[in-house]
């Protein structure tokens, strides 16, 4: 099983091919195939998580203690004066991405189950869905920037079509908007990527190429040699390796993005601008105010399973990207802009909540609540404390589960009445008691009630954010305190929605909905119950997740504090 990560990532791709090759006559099999293949990669993921040793302390700025590593040189180009640069096929897991991998597999599997509702153009749909799965999973385990970028970009097209072809009335607008937005983001990331691999070299391969190693040179020695300029640029092997990029010692002296580099642009250090660019790139995906406007449209228009995947996993790519690239590679700039990021986080929390408070469409409300909850991620990251970072990761994970559940329940109602307007319902509890129970669970979980995973996450984000000013001084304490307002607002919009739709006298706008308003079907239980179990499990025993990420987070914070000065 040494290729387990590859299996996890590419099994859905195989599934996509199988679906494409299965003739239309058997199209009832497509959903089975989709479920089967995503389920398979979920099983493998579980196995991988089982094999993953949370005790090992990974080195954020190097390959030490990576787990489940698969490293093959993909190709190596020598571009004249650019020197050689090598692209690796590098998949690996450490404390920062294992949780995201787990989340992605779970949500994708559940999403696949929900796909049973799709009736038209099934072949294309399931093909694209599996394609999407591969790219998403790949995003989380690829530690080579080139590979990461490949997966990252490749998410766009399937998403574009899934929203644009199977979506709601304004689907095309939403799809284009999503596409353009994300493309802008990824262009910004591309700029920085170019800058990075032009400034970073791979000490190991450099040692090989420069032929210094009749005796095997240690990384440090090579770095020393380069620092003294005893290896000329032509002999350097530029690297796309995200881990090397995170290590300031691997930056070529005098290169634009060199850590001590004084090279400035329009008066600002280029490193800082690079950080801003990559930050915006991922903040769009996250999304954070003011780059969030694609989210409500995309969510509202997307079909239920796609909303689930979008909210459950795709947003997390943004957060993960921030951790893995922006923060890990530019700790100093991150520290310099921590205030801004924290403020954006705080603002998103409240801004999203305020928006949610005013929404009439259930899905829009959930979408804006996502904006609010992703704000917690930003806040936690900006804190740059272990509590904050853990909180951020935990928040991504739990929001992945909770928002999936929220969109599922929104979908349940929509399937029955094709209407999501909150005002059009009342007292549904009489008609659909069990549905009401699940909605209640989802709402309370999402507003951060203890016992559900969301609480742990938000608590740590707060604690971390507050602590930040005392230990590292990234963001002021008041940000944490102000952000707590988000909790009240969340309680507000959820409870009022709950009260409007489910409590009081039973009443719906259109009489002809009445027959449709049956309680949950067995299928819906099948997807909802596991989610509830997970949400509660991670709520009452955080160790499940923390034991995986603790060491990673710790060394990540160590990395930040070491280099942010």
């Amino acid at each position, binding site marked *: 099983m040494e290729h387990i990560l590859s299996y996890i990532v590419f099994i859905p791709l195989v599934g996509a091919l199988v679906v494409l090759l299965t003739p239309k006559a058997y199209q009832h099999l497509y959903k089975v195939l989709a479920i089967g293949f995503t389920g398979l990669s979920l099983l493998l993921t579980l196995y991988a998580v089982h094999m993953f040793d949370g005790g090992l302390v990974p080195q954020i700025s190097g390959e030490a203690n990576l787990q489940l590593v698969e490293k093959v040189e993909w190709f190596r180009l020598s571009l004249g004066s650019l020197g050689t640069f090598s692209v690796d096929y590098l998949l690996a897991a450490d404390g920062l991405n294992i949780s995201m991998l787990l989340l992605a597999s779970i949500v994708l599997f559940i999403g696949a189950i929900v796909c049973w509702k799709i009736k038209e153009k099934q072949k294309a749909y399931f093909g694209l869905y599996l394609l999407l799965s591969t790219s998403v999973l790949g995003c989380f385990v690829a530690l080579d920037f080139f590979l990461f970028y490949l997966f990252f970009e490749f998410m766009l097209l399937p998403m574009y079509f899934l929203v644009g072809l199977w979506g709601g009335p304004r689907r095309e607008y939403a799809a284009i908007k999503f596409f353009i937005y994300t493309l802008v983001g990824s262009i910004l990331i591309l700029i920085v990527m170019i800058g990075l691999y032009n400034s970073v070299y791979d000490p190991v391969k450099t040692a090989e190429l420069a032929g210094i190693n009749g005796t095997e040179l240690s990384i440090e020695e090579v770095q020393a040699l380069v620092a003294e300029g005893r290896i000329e640029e032509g002999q350097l092997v530029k690297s796309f390796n995200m881990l090397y990029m995170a290590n300031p010692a691997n930056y070529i002296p005098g290169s634009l993005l060199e850590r001590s580099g004084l090279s400035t642009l329009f008066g600002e250090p280029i490193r800082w601008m690079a950080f801003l660019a990559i930050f915006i790139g991922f903040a769009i995906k996250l999304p954070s105010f003011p780059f969030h406007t694609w989210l409500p449209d995309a969510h509202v228009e997307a079909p239920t399973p796609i909303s689930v995947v979008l909210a459950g996993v795709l947003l997390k790519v943004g957060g993960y990207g921030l951790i893995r690239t922006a923060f890990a590679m530019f700790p100093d700039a991150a520290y310099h802009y921590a205030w801004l990021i924290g403020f954006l986080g705080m603002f998103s929390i409240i801004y999203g909540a305020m928006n949610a408070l005013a929404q009439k469409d259930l899905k829009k409300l959930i979408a804006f609540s996502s904006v609010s909850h992703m704000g917690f991620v930003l806040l936690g990251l900006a804190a740059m404390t272990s509590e904050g970072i853990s909180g951020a990761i935990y928040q991504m994970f739990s929001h992945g589960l909770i928002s999936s559940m929220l969109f599922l329940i929104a979908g349940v109602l929509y399937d029955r009445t094709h209407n999501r307007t909150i005002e059009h319902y009342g007292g549904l509890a009489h008609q659909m008691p069990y549905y009401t129970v699940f909605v209640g669970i989802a709402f309370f979980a999402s507003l951060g009630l203890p016992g559900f995973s969301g609480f742990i996450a938000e*608590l740590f984000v707060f*604690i971390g954010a507050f602590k930040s000013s005392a230990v590292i001084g990234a963001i002021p304490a008041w940000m944490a*305190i102000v952000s707590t307002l988000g909790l009240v607002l969340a*309680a507000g919009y959820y409870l009022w929605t709950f009260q409007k739709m489910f409590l009081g006298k039973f009443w719906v706008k259109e009489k002809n909905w009445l027959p449709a308003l049956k309680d949950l079907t067995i299928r819906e239980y099948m997807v909802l119950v596991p989610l509830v179990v997970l949400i509660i499990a991670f709520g009452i025993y955080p160790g499940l997740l923390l034991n995986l990420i603790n060491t990673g987070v710790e060394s990540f914070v160590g990395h930040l504090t070491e280099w942010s000065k």
Partner: protein
Amino acid sequence: MIELDHLIAPEQSEYTLWVVALLTLPLLSGLISAFLKQQAPYGSSFLIGLNLVVAGFLALSLWDEPVSIRGSWFSLAGNDFTYSFFLDRLALAMSVIVNFVALLVHLFSIEYMREDPSKPRYFAYLGLFTFSMMGIVLFHNLLFMFIFWELVGLSSFLLIGFWFEKKSASLAANKAFILNRIGDLGFITGLMILYTQFQTLDLDAVKSLMAISEIEDGNWVVAFKKAGQEVMASLDGRWLSAAGIALFCGAVGKSAQFPLQVWLPDAMEGPTPVSALIHAATMVAAGVFMLARIFVLLDAQALEVVAIVGAVTAFMAAIAALSQFDIKKVLAYSTISQLGYMVLAMGVGAFSAGIFHLITHAFFKAGLFLSAGIIIHQLHHLEKGGQKFDPQDMRVMGGLRRKMPVTFFAFLLCSLALVGLPGFSGFLSKDAILLDLAVWADEKGGGFYIPEVLAFMTVVFTAFYTFRMILLVFFGEFRLAGILGRNQLENELHEGNGWLTVPAVIFALLSLSIPFGFTLNPEDSWLMQALPTPMYVVPVAYAAQSLLDIPHETFEVLHGLVNAVSIGLALAGLVLAYWVYRPGGKLQKSFIEKREPVGVFGQVSFYHWYLNALYEKIILKGILAKARGVAWFDRWIVDEAVNLLARLQVVIAYLTRWFDRVFVDGLVNLTAHSIGKVGQLTRSIQSGNIQAQILVTFIFLLTLILLLVL
């Protein structure tokens, strides 16, 4: 140097299983009632009874040597997040009381909810509530207290909104939850501060670390060892007070203190036994309990805030209780005001007095609610033939003592305890509070007499509204008959059965002072002695003066005076009430006819100082309006800005195209004009004209040359 890891080292005890049982039995009772369907009441009541036994056993066996149990929940970034139980007398007493009240309420509910189809849900909620309440009581770790704190909020939300088809009920539930949430923000902030400073939320550890922390030139510094190496945590000293006040905010929400008390009256939408259990005896007391837990961490400033808030609440609520029609509303306001007393007690440092009052209040207020419940229940039975009336409105009652003697007896005893007449439990506890308050005020002097004044005025009002209630409910003639025009109605009314009366009577008996010691001096009550006031551990520079440091004589001196004044005031209240509301008195009549009290005072009182109006009409509306504004902003500004960019691009595209085609011609025509003086082609040079294109190209290139070369 103190080692954090030792402070939070795991501890075991042979009682662990018992504690776990104590915690989980109620949850179990909740769960099973979901399956027992119609048998739910008996099953869950039985389990609660069992739990009471457990609590009793633990109390007996651990009363003198408290046990603490601790283990690691999970660890994050090298910090262990522990769970820990601490069964000291406070916890034990509370757990006994909670289970006791819970049991009686269960029994009461068996009858009270007999007709309700969704009984199982009801008992499930009750079980959930008892479980979370026990969590607050047993856990000795701020994080866990907060968790169960919120769970209590949830169960209260569920129980208030139990009859969810009533819009008012569901709204009241929301209100309760959200206002509690606001309080909890404070709680969380408190957690943040303490965690940041001490890196643990285990109360024992926090206390011992607080004990060794010092104030160095305005900074709150603590040095301890963690995992071997020294940690030197330092925060601005103001955070120390802030921590106390922040945590207190939690109590403000939960125990309905000013300014968040408005949810409690609405919470009366819930079934009456629930009001008895949650909104009188236990949950609302949780705030006070929590204050007791963190008592030693509060510094002078925090304590002052606590005291003032308590006094203000007590006074405001008492005023509000004066003019209500709804019997439950009266009780609710009186609850708020009594809670105000307890908080005030904590504020002035009268730890044991506060707890004492908490306990006595739990009994007599529960008794009052249950008796009121009986009345409501019985009156409810009179509703027939579409003759709707509000069985909680005192204006339909009157003269009930003839038909419901037992209830009357119970109600009377509890009321006397509430008023605080000698011989009743309420007297002892309230007296203790007032005494300490007086001493505190004397020590501090100046503006700190105001709380004292408020507290003593509250005594009058308490007596007044209590007797008003009694007179309106039990004396005079049965007004409902007149209203409905059914003269024989009174004969249809009869006493509630044993399920209902027995619990009420038990509470009534418990509100006599005998159970707490046959004395007029609270000092001698065994409970007071059992729960002595602890010393503050906050750094001396910030600590308040503890009452224990005040020579005992001071108390002796003031005691007689305070006694006399309070009794006198209480009696004054009674007399006043009788004078106004005596049967057949015309003030009573005029009052009863009125739809709502007149006069500024009446209005202010009836509308509870217009707090609701302030919150709902102004603040809430404001927020919602702002939300709509934000949404508009998002839709039309932020989003449009993006679309604008997209459009802008189209515009640029248009411009380039224009440049490519139109501008060419423009330029061409221009040049054509100039050249045209020589040549004769001014007429016709149009788009697609190759010469024009060549020309423009060349002009462009020449300009480039000029720009770049020269």
